């Protein structure tokens, strides 16, 4: 979707602020959110990133990284039917009034643990599969000018731009919510494509630089 998250090339965010001796977490709750997100064996309907991308832009911009994760996880668990908004509200009220309330005892720790161990991990691009890549290194390509409403990994700043294939990574699962028109298979060749800075930014481009993006084959048109 053409959302606020798609910020490559935007103006207005100012200088990059760095923190000396930055701690791994700035608040203890952030580490709990990370662990809950990594370890809860419930897939989020539509994906965690899709929830974040659909946040109201003002909410997105004013939320920290882990606030976004927390929002997305709660929404996802509600969408998955695991939680209800009322349960959250009631439990928050309980903990607000009784900050020292014990976390309730859990059902069967061994069963929970075995489910946790089973629910791993993602797979990298595969070289196998009977799919022939359409492009080779050195081929000129054009990024398609698509504007899907759902999740996509094709940033706005590269759409409609010309580039050159520099690497073939193998067959990989397209992460977009919708398959682009004319495309029937999520398993697609994945390439590195080089876009010259001048192609992307015109006369505002800096000297001697280029941007590389990972492009599933359905993002590309032959030139």
């Amino acid at each position, binding site marked *: 979707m053409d959302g606020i*998250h*798609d*910020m*490559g090339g*935007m103006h207005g*965010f100012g*200088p*990059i602020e760095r*923190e000396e001796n*930055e701690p*791994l977490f*700035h608040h*203890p*709750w952030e580490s*709990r*959110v*990370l*662990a*809950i997100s990594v*370890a*809860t064996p419930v897939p989020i309907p539509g994906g965690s*990133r899709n929830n*974040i991308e659909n946040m109201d832009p003002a909410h997105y*911009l004013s939320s920290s*990284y882990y*606030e976004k994760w*927390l929002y997305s*996880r*709660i929404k996802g*668990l509600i969408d998955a039917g695991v939680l209800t908004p009322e349960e*959250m509200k009631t*439990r*928050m009220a309980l*903990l607000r009034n009784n900050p020292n309330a014990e*976390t*309730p005892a*859990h059902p069967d720790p061994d*069963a*929970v643990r075995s*489910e946790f161990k089973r629910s791993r*991990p*993602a797979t*990298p*691009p595969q070289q196998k599969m009977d799919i022939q890549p359409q492009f080779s290194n050195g081929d000129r390509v054009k990024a398609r000018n698509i504007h899907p409403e759902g999740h996509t*990994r*094709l*940033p706005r*700043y590269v759409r409609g731009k010309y580039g050159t294939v520099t690497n073939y*990574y193998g067959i990989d699962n397209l*992460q977009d919510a919708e398959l682009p028109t004319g495309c029937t298979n999520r398993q697609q060749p*994945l390439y590195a494509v*080089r876009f010259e800075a001048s192609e992307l930014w015109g006369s505002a481009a*800096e000297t*001697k*630089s*280029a*941007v*590389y993006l*990972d492009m*599933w084959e359905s993002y590309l048109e032959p030139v």
Partner: protein
Amino acid sequence: MNTAETDAALRTRALESLLIEKGLITEDIIDEVVEKYEKDVGPLNGARVVARAWTDPDYKQRLLEDGRATIAELGFDSAQGAKIVVLENTPDVHHLVVCTLCSCYPWSVLGLPPNWYKSYAYRSRAVREPRAVLLEFDLDLPDAVEIRVWDSNSDLRYMVLPERPAGTEDYTEEQLISLVTRDSMIGVAKIESPSK
């Protein structure tokens, strides 16, 4: 803590408590995951990969061809299941990694990303004006050096293999590890020669 932080802390406690009650997670599992990121997963892993690549040409060649498998040779698994692509900096080409859509980062070799990497300023500017961004990191690259910015938009992850600094010819692998910085593996810094 401001109001949003207080709310997030309370919300997190409520979520954790409900998930435990529903048998979806345990406090121990959460503690273990947190401990893993606090103790085992961090830029020291990436530094070990870099130091090995500097001292072992065969390892370096394999690393550039297949980052994931070659990194796994050092004994820590490439978590996330992600394929890692290693980008070699040279006197002529400088690589820089960003994720404009999200904040994707090679956790298994660098740990969790610093806040600046997740900032809107870095995400928006690194692809459009990398030289200006690098100047803010006090890295002034000559115009003759080509800058290649890698936008991590798929599930691949990118890590930079920085140049080995001059004056380290006699260093042991352990000494080299201590020189490698996180920022050099993202591409916003070079590694200073220790003799300077």
